[in-house]
């Protein structure tokens, strides 16, 4: 497979003074804060890998950032790559007042990672690609924004988090709820003991999934590299409902709602209760998996974790009961923390809060108490961290921990027997069969 080597202004300069100019560097406040758009060499060069619904949305959001230049988009679906390119070029043409045609399109992400002018990538590809792309990007010296869940298996996630750590990359998990004040505040209420001793955490994750309508293979559309889309996962015949928006109902690529909204909901629960959740934990899961020629994820589930520290954590497909939800938003999905002095419900998405006693929500967290990381904007938090080489609000290790938790719920439902999980060692205790499910063999030539 041939890959184009791009010779750019930066690459030429790199040959002369690699140490001084390689990689993103600290941009002074002056360069950031001035009314004029920063010069090209002071803008972060960003590329999108996987620019469908969510990934494309990220590209459009980045166009609002004056200190960013979207240089390229990569997608195995040529139509999506071109559509994004057109939007990006139209925007920059308007900004600079002349025709801009500088957004390149790619099908192979490795060509994107070869570019020295790309400082960072946004990964919006399907779940089964997240960890592999992270490893490749980290190894290429790029900073990373990766949509949740950061992995499709537990061990893939560990490899990705290790690669990020090894190369000192700035990584942001697409757990946008962490940048909501309400979610942060809820975590601070829990960790500072305002609910008393927390004994139960309930995650409500309702979801309905309809049938796929699949009756057999269909021709691969023109301009869609299906083989590349499959990547490390087993070859199976093409059907339009296998890919794009509905991949997440197929266990080869995703764990369904357990990782889709589960990654958001469990992430906030884990963020809030992290110091209280001391393992190991016994896990008992019951699930009903959809009976369909193509879709096969769990659509009804009840998974209970019993932590050694005494906390019971339940993930279920039930809706939150009407008396705990915020009447204004009516969201029935979210987390309920129950303590011996009260309870707190956090709706996902949006972070609407309800508590008993209600005055709990008037609590002010004092300076000497535990404060969680504050981030007014998730994307800006990542961009600023790239410049300061500082931490993000949803770093790789946190994203991995959340994704791992979600995968545990899927494995527990699938195995339908009692399991014991060691969080420190990241393995099931005395259970080779369950441990085998922490990873999946990769299709050639892909490997981590």
């Amino acid at each position, binding site marked *: 497979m041939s890959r184009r080597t791009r010779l750019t202004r930066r690459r030429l300069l790199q040959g002369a003074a690699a140490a001084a100019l390689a990689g993103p560097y600290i941009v002074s406040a002056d360069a950031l804060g001035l009314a004029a758009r920063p010069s090209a060499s002071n803008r972060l060069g960003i590329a999108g890998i996987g620019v469908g619904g969510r990934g494309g949305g990220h590209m459009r959001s980045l166009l609002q950032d004056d200190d960013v230049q979207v240089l390229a988009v990569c997608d195995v679906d040529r139509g999506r790559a071109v559509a994004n390119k057109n939007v990006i070029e139209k925007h920059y043409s308007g900004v600079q007042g002349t025709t801009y045609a500088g957004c390149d399109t790619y099908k192979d992400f490795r060509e994107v990672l070869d570019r020295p002018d790309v400082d960072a990538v946004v990964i919006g590809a399907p779940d089964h690609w997240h960890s592999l792309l992270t490893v490749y990007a980290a190894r290429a010296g790029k900073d990373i924004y990766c949509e949740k869940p950061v992995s499709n298996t537990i061990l893939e996630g560990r490899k990705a988090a290790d690669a990020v750590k090894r190369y*000192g990359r700035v990584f942001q998990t697409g757990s946008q709820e962490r940048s909501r004040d309400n979610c942060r505040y809820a975590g601070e209420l829990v960790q500072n003991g305002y609910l008393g001793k927390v004994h139960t955490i309930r995650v409500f994750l309702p979801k309905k999934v309809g049938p796929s309508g699949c009756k057999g293979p269909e021709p691969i559309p023109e301009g869609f590299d299906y083989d590349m889309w499959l990547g490390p996962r087993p070859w199976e015949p093409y*059907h339009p409902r296998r890919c794009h928006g509905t991949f997440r109902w197929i266990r080869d690529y995703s764990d369904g709602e357990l990782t889709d909204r589960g990654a958001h909901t469990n992430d906030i629960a884990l963020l809030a209760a992290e110091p209280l959740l001391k393992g190991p934990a016994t896990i008992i899961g019951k699930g009903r998996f959809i009976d369909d020629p193509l879709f096969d994820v769990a659509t009804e589930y009840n998974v209970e974790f019993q932590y050694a520290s005494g906390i019971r954590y339940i993930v279920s497909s039930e809706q939150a009961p009407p008396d705990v939800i915020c009447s204004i938003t009516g969201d029935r999905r979210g987390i309920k923390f129950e303590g011996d002095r009260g309870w707190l419900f956090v709706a996902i998405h949006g972070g609407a809060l309800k508590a008993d006693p209600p005055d709990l929500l008037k609590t002010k967290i004092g300076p000497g108490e535990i404060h969680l990381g504050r981030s007014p904007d998730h994307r800006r938090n990542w961009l600023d961290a790239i410049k300061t080489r500082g931490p993000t609000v949803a770093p790789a290790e946190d994203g991995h921990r959340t994704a791992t938790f979600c995968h545990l719920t899927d494995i527990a439902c699938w195995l339908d027997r009692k399991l014991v999980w060691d969080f420190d060692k990241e393995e099931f205790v005395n259970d080779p069969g369950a441990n085998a499910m922490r990873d999946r*063999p990769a*299709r*050639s030539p892909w*490997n981590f």
Partner: protein
Amino acid sequence: MPSTRTRILAGLVVCVLAAAAVSWAAEADVEQAMKDLPKYEFGQSRAQLTLIQETLRAAEPAKRTDLCNRLAALLSSGATDAAKRWVCRQLSIFGTEAQVPQLAPLLVDEQLSDMARYALERIEHPSAVEAMRKALASAKPGQKIGLINSLGVRRDEKAVDDLVKALQGGDQPTATAAARALAKIGGPKAVEALADMRTKAEGDLLAVVRDAYLQCADGLLAAGKAAQAAEMYQQMYKPDLPKHVRTAALRGIVAAGGEKTMPLLTEILTGNDTEMQASALRFLREVAGPEITKALTDLLPKLPPETQAMMLADLGARGDPAALPAVAKAVASDNEAVKKAAVLALGQLGDASTLPALTALAAGGPCADEARQALDTLPAANVNPAMIEQAKSAEPNVRKEVIRSLGARGVTAAVPVLVQAARADDKAVRQEAFRSLEKLAGSQAVPELVALVVNPKDAEDRPAAQRALATVAGRCPEKEACASAMLAALDAAPADAKAALLQTLPAAGTDKALAALKKCVGSDDEKVRDAAIRSLADWPDPAAAPDLLAIAQTVEKTAHQVLALRGYIRLAGSESLKADQRLQMYKDAMAAAKRPDEKKQVLGGLGGVKAVAALEMVIPALDDAALQKEACAAAVAIAKNLGGQGKPVIVEAMKKVLAISKDKRLNGEAQTLLKKAGG
């Protein structure tokens, strides 16, 4: 007549036979599924496959092995490829060494090589690994890469020689796979081969080889061989290597420790590469202990300003109070970035002794914002009492900063001092006192707050006092006590003060407070009357509704008419009212409304009433051009929640909406509702 014993025995026999029948039937289903499996094609129902899978999951080991053997036998049969792929998936989870002989030949099969590996890679038996190793010799290039990957996952030490050959061979993709596999297996031969390839490889292979070498070093470090690992990391920390590779090496160097670590860190931290400096500090935070604080504080004054600023941030985050003297000294820096970083770090490390410096900085100058932030985050236990003392009597510039910070810090013990400060001579001190009282005061402070509203130090302070009182009364659970304190002062208060007190009564919300408001609506004093009507319009519950309607219907002054009516319409939306009560209120409000704005407000409220009568009330508004947009939105909102009731009314309303609305989304919803209602 059979005895009881006989009947029980007979019952037991029937149960056993029934259970057996169920079991035989289930077995028959599984047998049928096994019979049909070879014909399975993608797109067909998977119900039978699921049955086999569930049987496998629930089976005892011997039965499971038997079933797996039968599945494995299909791999060499004429079964469809789809069936064979599915079999490999099951063997991947349930398979054992017994099925290795059937899987092994497929490793070089054009269609099924990857799926055979899918199963073998997970079968925890040496024969599975051996089969994959043996297949290397006859595999095609693409298959070979997959086999190499799997041997790496299985950490097959016996494959190292083959992998080294593949690494050194000319085929780049194969060599790349071999490098990754050697990284997983590790060991002296792997390390040696990778070290050699570091000098020979190019392009993508070179990047993978470097990564593999670093992973081997990580493995050695984890195994306790720090010195050997450190040597390897040092080899990767060379100026001609890409920065991210050197960053990885640096991390390893810091983690491995050793005598070369601090000199290297000193070189980095006193150099010009700010990105590497940030990485160094981050790695130190991950792996180093408290003794590093001393090393860093000794180094601090020698660093260039930008690096000093980064290190100060790090010292603050580290939270070791031993760094406080060095940080406090850095506050005196001429460099603004260093100064600001030091001030913020003081906020994380400081105690009462840092108050004078911080309050002086907060009073004005380039670091004022940082100093305020630092005051708000000072962690030590002795800080709050010291601040309370300063709030009593410090010089005004300091006093106001301390008072502000007491509010931000949530120090409720400061309330008595704040009440005193609300009568200070200095205006800025008084203003900050009111702001902090608003945040901190409880019901005990209400009488004093009332006194401050009635008789402030300066009349200009009254709005701030009023705001504080209203906020405090609003959050206090002791509503009657709050109202009593307010009402006790009301009658004797002069007009301005009375007007201000009236505007705090809704926060108390008691019956007596409402009665007082109603009385003041009839006051001769314009200010008092105005304040009373405004407050009535803000009343928190429907008890004020009749009076508001009466005002809206009778008062001459337009501003009061509008205020009263808006308040009435707002109360009509109260969740405590039944639907018919709300409807009547909206009807009365619509009749009293003279302007489109209030009529639109009524329509907005009607949109939340789940009653056919509400929709009937909206329909006439659909004919009024000034109200059509709101009427359409209300009509659709109501119709969505009628649950099949009032179909004729829905039809009439939706037809009108579709005739006049230009909102595509709304029209789509109206269309759907019309169809459901039979229109």
